[in-house]
């Protein structure tokens, strides 16, 4: 409890005035000793005095404007802000490599984009408390949805990506756009970008720096799901020896770049819907950690309360005044 005008409290001794000063319109009585002691009268007299003193105290305290200081309350939530960055390059229309069905036959799998859309839809539906935004990219980023809590919109947007894909893979612009989604949104404490792509593209040095700066400044963690061609180059392949005089393959270079982020980063490789499912489950679990954050609660002003109590007491005193004797003498 603090006061906006603490100096007003110096007036508090004034509250004793009703005790020191007698009310002016006392009737003279010839011999007060003759009046029998009446406990009820004495009690009322005491109450009236206390009431008068309290009224003054509350008015003075009210003038001093008491209020509580702002408080920080620790809150725990589970809502994350997730931006989905989906690859819409032409290669996403390729099916996953075939898998063995129950009868042992090789089947042609569903296309990568359809599998991704299906799994991401399930993912979105399982996380009711999160905010989702979506960016797709091929040659350049396509702004689809800002971060919002509208699940229908995001599901519809994800479904839409299952259609025909376009052109090339430009991861750089997709990532910068996704970081832009978080720019004006208050931080819930858990921000993630899920980057789903097959293969990788090269990002020039300027864009790399920009992406790194933004992700770190906005505190965004990154999940990268690589949809790999069966038998293709694995980013986790430690035995890979780069070809001399050749630049590193794009996905390895990108992986190394992502690993330099100070914010959490995790990469997954998916070769079929099942491994994609596993990756999504893993992300799901990781982003379930409770978010601890402090909420600032503004201080409460008590001066009006004080004035209301004082007004109530004054009303009481006025009521008492009504039953005061005026006809005597």
């Amino acid at each position, binding site marked *: 409890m603090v006061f906006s005008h603490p100096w007003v409290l110096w007036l508090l001794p004034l509250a004793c005035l009703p005790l020191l000063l007698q009310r002016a319109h006392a009737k003279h009585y*010839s011999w007060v000793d003759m009046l*029998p002691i009446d406990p009820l009268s004495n009690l009322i*007299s005491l109450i009236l005095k206390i009431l008068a003193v309290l009224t003054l105290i509350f008015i003075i305290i009210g003038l001093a404007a008491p209020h509580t200081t702002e408080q920080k309350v620790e809150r725990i939530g589970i809502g994350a802000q997730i931006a989905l960055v989906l690859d819409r390059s032409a290669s996403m229309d390729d099916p996953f490599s075939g898998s063995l069905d129950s009868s042992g036959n090789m089947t042609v799998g569903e296309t990568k984009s359809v599998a991704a859309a299906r799994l991401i839809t399930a993912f979105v539906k399982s996380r009711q408390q999160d905010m989702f935004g979506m960016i797709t990219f091929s040659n350049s980023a396509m702004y689809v949805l800002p971060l919002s809590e509208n699940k229908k919109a995001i599901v519809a947007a994800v479904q839409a990506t299952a259609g025909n894909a376009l052109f090339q893979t430009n991861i750089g612009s997709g990532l910068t756009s996704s970081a832009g989604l978080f720019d004006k949104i208050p931080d819930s404490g858990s921000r993630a970008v899920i980057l789903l792509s097959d293969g990788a593209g090269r990002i020039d040095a300027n864009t790399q720096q920009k992406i790194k700066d933004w992700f770190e400044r906005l505190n965004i963690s990154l999940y990268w799901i690589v949809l790999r061609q069966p038998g293709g180059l694995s980013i986790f392949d430690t035995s890979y020896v780069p070809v001399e005089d050749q630049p590193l393959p794009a996905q390895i270079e990108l992986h190394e770049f992502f690993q330099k982020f100070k914010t959490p980063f995790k990469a997954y490789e998916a070769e079929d819907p099942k491994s994609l499912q596993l990756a999504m489950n893993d992300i799901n679990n990781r982003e379930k950690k409770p978010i601890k954050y402090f909420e600032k609660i503004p201080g409460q002003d008590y001066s009006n309360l004080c004035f209301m109590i004082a007004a109530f007491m004054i009303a009481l005193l006025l009521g008492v005044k009504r039953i005061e*004797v005026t006809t005597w*003498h």
Partner: protein
Amino acid sequence: MIDNIKSFDYHVSWRSRGRHPGRHASTQRGMGMEFRGHTTLLSYPDPRRIDIRQTIRDPLEQVYVRLFNQKSATPVYVICDLSGSMNFGAKKRKIKLAAEISESIAQSASEHHDPFGFIGFDEKVREDWISTTSFKSHHAITMAEALKDFHPAQVNCNGITEVYRYLPRERSLVFLISDFHMPNTLLEEALSNLLRHHIVPIVLWDSAEYKNLPEFGLVNVDDAETGEKRTLFLRKELREKIVQSFESRRNEIYELFMRFDMPPFYVEGEFDADALTEYFHQFVAA
């Protein structure tokens, strides 16, 4: 004589020692009608009073005269309380009522050819409210007239114990006018010093003090003498208690006065001179 002041009749049951002729039985020899005895002409040389029968009967042939007691005047005093409580009164302040009674007494004393004096007191005897005994009542009546507009200060009535110093040595008729709102010990002390005189206590109470209280409500009162503050929540129960308290007080002072053989005379609201005449017929042997 002032016509609009109603007087009353009074007498005393004791013999006055005053030499001044008046209306009361006296121990003074003189031109009265009350036969007292015989003495020789040599010791009381008044030939008008020679008792021939007694003179003839005396074998020693002395001349006898008859002795008579004259009627003498008796000093009449009003001792009036001027303390704060006398300022109380709903219709008429007690001090005004006391002044009216004093005027009536002065008038009566004048009609009975008695000298009249007035002594006022509050916490001490008020020298400025003293009128020395005089056969002419005008001075006292003027003073009583001034008393009607006097507003007593917030003082107590301890001066009552000193009043006896201002009274003469000879037994006088003293009207003690007060509301007697004072502690019993103080009153007893004062009365025991006044035993030499014939005291008529006139008790002034006001019905607004106890009977005519407001029906209901809160009221702050402060004592007219001590300034003590009290808040009263007037209601039926409390009013009954107050009336009871005053009734027991009435008994208390009645018993106190009767121990000193001074029956009190109560005045409440209005003074009735005839009632005082009645008082003397009832309580004072002629």
